């Protein structure tokens, strides 16, 4: 190094400094540490970042599906309230549940009592129950939609139901309403008791007519002639 030449001095200083600039050495065993890290990586592979989101995405999808199913179920029609309208005074006889509007049911008889249903031994058409507001309601479990709207419309027209009246489509129109069910134990006991005479007759106990009717005296009708006309 020439101390009298500033340019050479700077060059020498730069060469010396640059040679030492990256002259540091790693600590002993850097290769073994790296290989140990690689083996640890092989034994326990780090999960990729996108895999972390897989469970979260699955949970989100499940939540969305459950929510959609719940919303869809809430929008399903509730069990319908079937009310016989005033015009629905007749009902189909007991028969196969496949009976639909317009189907003929020859020789059928109605079994219902205590309601507005009218017995009929003549062949007649089965009816479709039309939903309408009314004081008398009955639950019909298992009812579901599915009857073609045209059949409903025909039934409404045939019964004179207003078009504005909401009609729930019926898939299986009941031929007998209420649906016949076997007698309960209490009912069977009551019938047995009635047959054995343990129960009073259902016939009304009407007293004889003489006791019931009051004694009425019918007086003779007398018509007096007009006196003024005779005198004149």
């Amino acid at each position, binding site marked *: 190094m020439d101390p009298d030449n*500033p*340019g050479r*001095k*700077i*060059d020498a*200083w*730069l060469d*010396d*400094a*640059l*040679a*030492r*600039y*990256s*002259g*540091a*050495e*790693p*600590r002993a065993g*850097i*290769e073994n*540490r*790296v*290989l140990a*890290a*690689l083996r640890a*990586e*092989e034994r326990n592979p780090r999960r990729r970042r996108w895999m972390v989101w897989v469970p979260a995405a699955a949970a989100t999808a499940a939540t969305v599906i459950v929510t959609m199913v719940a919303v869809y179920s809430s929008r399903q029609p509730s069990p319908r309230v079937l009310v016989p309208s005033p015009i629905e005074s007749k009902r189909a006889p007991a028969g196969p549940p496949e009976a639909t509007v317009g189907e003929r049911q020859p020789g059928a008889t109605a079994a219902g009592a205590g309601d507005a249903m009218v017995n009929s031994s003549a062949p007649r058409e089965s009816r479709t129950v039309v939903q309408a507001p009314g004081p008398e309601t009955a639950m019909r479990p298992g009812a579901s939609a599915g009857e073609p709207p045209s059949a409903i419309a025909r039934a409404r027209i045939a019964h004179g139901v207003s078009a504005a009246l909401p009609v729930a489509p019926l898939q299986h129109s009941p031929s007998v309403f209420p649906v016949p069910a076997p007698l309960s134990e209490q009912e069977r006991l009551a019938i047995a008791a009635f047959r054995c005479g343990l129960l009073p007759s259902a016939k009304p106990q009407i007293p004889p007519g003489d006791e019931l009717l009051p004694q009425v005296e019918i007086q003779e009708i007398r018509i007096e002639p007009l006196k003024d006309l005779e005198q004149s």
Partner: protein
Amino acid sequence: MRTPATDVESVVREHARFVFKVAYSILRNVEDAEDVVQETFLRVHRSGELPNVREVRPWLARIAWRVALDRVHPRQEIALGPLMEAGFQAHAKETGAEQLLVEQEQVELLHRLIVILPEELRHALVLSTVEEMNSVEIGRVLGISEITVRTRLFRARQMLKEKLAAWMEGGHGS
């Protein structure tokens, strides 16, 4: 026929020190540079591209370069004045007993001069200080041509000399 794991192992044993020097040229810290070495080879292992790589050294240097740049802290912007004066004075009156201290201060002064260089010049100059890296490999790491590397190295060296000359003309370093 060697398995990929064996290939990685041989590459680690052959190039770990080189990767360390690349990382150290940027980070100037042994621990950080060793972390970069581990991260570099972990990336190599995960990528599985090692069997398809023709020139391993520039490929490793590029990976280590990027990993190290991700770890650079902005703390490197430091005023030069006091250290610059101390470095030249120590270099001027160097003795055998103080040789190690002089070299450390000399390198630290150079580092602080390099830090204030433009980025494109700084990167080329830093990689040129890594032994065994020529202009072609530096160009592959930086994605530039060999001629551009040489031009940048020349410009970087000129800027360093100008800064040192201006400082010496101010009455320091004698």
